[in-house]
C-alpha cells in the first residue's frame, strides 16, 4: 500500500515536472503555420482581402476561416502555393483569370494631390505636389489602395499590356472532346 502510494506520487511529480519544463523550454510563440503562410502572401499589407494586413490574412487562412482565393494581388501563383502548403485542392474557379493588372494614372484627370503616393504600400507611385503622377508598373501590385483615395478618379486598374517577354501561347482548344460528343450524338 505504502509502496504503491510512494511510487505513484513520485511518478506523478516527476512526469508533471517534465511536462512543466517541456512547456517552458519548448514553448512555441504563436502558430508557426501562420508565419509560413504569411511568407507565401505578397506582404504588401494592402488589406484588399478584408483582413488587417497579410498577418491577419495568414491567421484566418490557418484557422480555415478564409478561402484560399482571398488575395487579389497574389493571383493564381499565391493560390497554388497556399494550396500546396495546406495540402488541399486549389479551387482556381474563383480567381479572376484576367491576368496581371497594374494601376494607371489618367493624366488629364490627375491634379497632383499626392494622396496616392502616400498610401502606396510598395512606393510604386512617382510624383510631387501639383505634378502629374505616374506608376512604376514593375512595382505595382494592383492592390487598389490608390484608386480608393484618388479624389478625381484618375487612377484605374488596367490589365497589364502583354509584352514580347510576357506573351505566351494560349491553351489549345479542346476540339477533340467536341468531336467525340458530336460522334456520339
Amino acid at each position, binding site marked *: 500500500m505504502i509502496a504503491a502510494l510512494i511510487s505513484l506520487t513520485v511518478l506523478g511529480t516527476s512526469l508533471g515536472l517534465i511536462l512543466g519544463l517541456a512547456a517552458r523550454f519548448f514553448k512555441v510563440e504563436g502558430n508557426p503555420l501562420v508565419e509560413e503562410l504569411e511568407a507565401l502572401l505578397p506582404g*504588401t499589407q494592402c488589406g484588399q482581402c478584408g483582413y488587417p494586413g497579410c498577418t491577419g490574412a495568414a491567421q484566418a487562412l490557418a484557422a480555415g476561416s478564409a478561402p484560399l482565393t482571398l488575395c487579389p494581388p497574389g493571383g493564381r501563383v499565391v493560390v497554388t502555393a497556399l494550396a500546396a502548403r495546406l495540402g488541399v485542392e486549389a479551387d482556381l474557379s474563383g480567381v479572376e483569370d484576367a491576368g496581371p493588372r497594374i494601376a494607371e494614372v489618367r493624366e488629364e484627370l490627375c491634379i497632383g494631390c499626392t494622396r496616392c503616393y502616400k498610401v502606396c504600400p510598395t*512606393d510604386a507611385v512617382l510624383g510631387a505636389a501639383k505634378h502629374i503622377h505616374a506608376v512604376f508598373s514593375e512595382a505595382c501590385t494592383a492592390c487598389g489602395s490608390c484608386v480608393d483615395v484618388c479624389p478625381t478618379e484618375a487612377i484605374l486598374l488596367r490589365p497589364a499590356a502583354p509584352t514580347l517577354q510576357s506573351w505566351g501561347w494560349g491553351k489549345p482548344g479542346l476540339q477533340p472532346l467536341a468531336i467525340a460528343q458530336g460522334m456520339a450524338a
Partner: protein
Amino acid sequence: MKLFKMRGGVHPEARKADSSERPIRILPLPPLLHVPLQQHIGAPAKPVVRVGEKVLAGQLLGVGQGHVTAPVHAPTSGYVVAIGDHPAPHPSGLSAATVTIAPDGEGRWFEYEVPADPFVLAPDDISARAGAAGIVGLGGAAFPSSVKLDASRQSGVDTLVINGGECEPYLTCDDRIMRERAAGIVTGIRLIQHAVGAGHAIVGIEDNKPEALAAMRAAAVATGVQIRAVPAMYPMGWEKQMIHALLGREVPAEGRSADIGVLVHNVATAWAVQQAICLARPLVSRIVTVSGGAVIAPCNLEVPIGTPVQALFDACGGFRTTPARLVLGGPMMGQQIVRTSVPVVKGTSGVLALTQAEIGRAAPAPCIRCSTCVRACPVGLLPLEIAARVRSDDLAGAVALGLKDCIGCGSCSYVCPSGIPLVHFFNYAKGDLAAQARSKAKQETTRKLAAERSARMERIVREREEAAAARKAAKAAKEAAARAAATTEAAA
C-alpha cells in the same frame, strides 16, 4: 569513323531542291531598314545613336547591357530616321524597340582595326571581338556567341562540333554557305577552336548535301578540321542529337553541352566569326532561304539585318498564290508571323510562304494512345502523357514527366495520326510556367519594397517623436535656467 545510333526523329519531306540549286544572291538595299534592339536571347541593347544622326555600315547602334546580351550595328550607311516601336518578328504581332535607318546608298564602312594575323590574338580577345561584332548563334536560337565561348574556355572543352545539319525542311541557307564560302567557314572554325582551346573540331553535315560535304572536305584539307556525314533525319540539327551522332556522348537532362566537354556552333556562325575577326566586319547581314509553295522563284539571299520580309518575297518574284501561312525559320520549329512588314533579324534562317496544301491539317481527333509520338521524341519523353497533364492543368505533373527537357522540335505533332497539336500544349505550358516564375519574382520585389517602406515610415515616426522629445527637453532646460537666474537675482 563510326556514327552512333540516334533516338527518335522523323523524316519529313525535305523540299530543299526548290532553293538549293540557285547561288546566293545579294538583296538590293530596301528603302528603310528596321533594326530591332533585341535580336538575341538575353537583355536588349541600349540605343547609342540619335534620330537624324548619320551612321556608317557596321557602326554601333545599340550596346549590350548585362552579361548575356549582344550589341547591334548599322547594316549600311545612312541616317537614323526613327527610334521607336516597330512590329517584331514574333508570332504575337507585338512591337519592339527598333532603330529605323534610311540607307544613303553609299555603303561606306565604319573603319575598325583589322588584326594582321588573327591567330596570334589571345583566346579571350577573339571572344571579346566576336561579342563586340554582335555575333549570336545563327542556327536560329540567337544565343550570344561570346558568352558561349567564354563559358567554354573557362570550363574547358575538348571538342568543337560545327553544326551543318540543317535538318529543317525547305531551309538551304547553310547548304549554300558551305558550298560557296567553305574556306571562310573553315578559318572561322579554326578561330573558334583557338578561342576555346578545343583539341578537335568536327563538322557534322547531313548526307543529303553531297555538294556541301565535298566543298567543306576540299577546304578542310590539312587543317585538322574533320568533316563527317551524318544521316539525314529531323532533328539532326539539334545540338544534343548532333553531339550524340558524332561522339556518342549524351548531354544530361537540363544540362548543357559544355558539361560533357563539347561546344557547338552553327556553320553560319563560324562564317560570321571569320568575318568579324579577320575583316573586322560586325554581323550586319545574313543568308536567308526564301521558299514555300506560294513563292514563285525560291532561292537564298544575302540580306541586310532589318530588311522587311516583304522585300525578300518581292526579290523572289512575289507570290504565286496568296500564302496560307507565313513562317520565319523552318516549318517544324519556325515562328508564324502575321504581317510581312516585320524585319529579318540575326536569327532568321528562312522566310517561308506556305500554301494551304502544305500546311493542310484536319481538326484534331482524340488520342488513341498509339504511342507513335513516344517513338518519335528525340529526347525520350512521353508526349501523350505530358499533353494529357497539361490539358488538365496539372503543370507539376507535366514538369515531373520532363516538360522542361522538351525542345519543342514538333516531331510528335508531325507524326500524330490524330493530328493533336502536342507541341502547342508544351509551348503553352512552358509559357505558363515562365509567367508564374515572373509573377513570383515580382512578388519578391514588391515584398522588399513594402518592407522598406514600412521601415521608412517607422523611422519617420520615431524621428518625429525624438525631435518632439528634444524640443521638450530644450524648453524645460530653458525654463529651469530662467528660474535659476530669477532665484539668483532674488537672492542678490
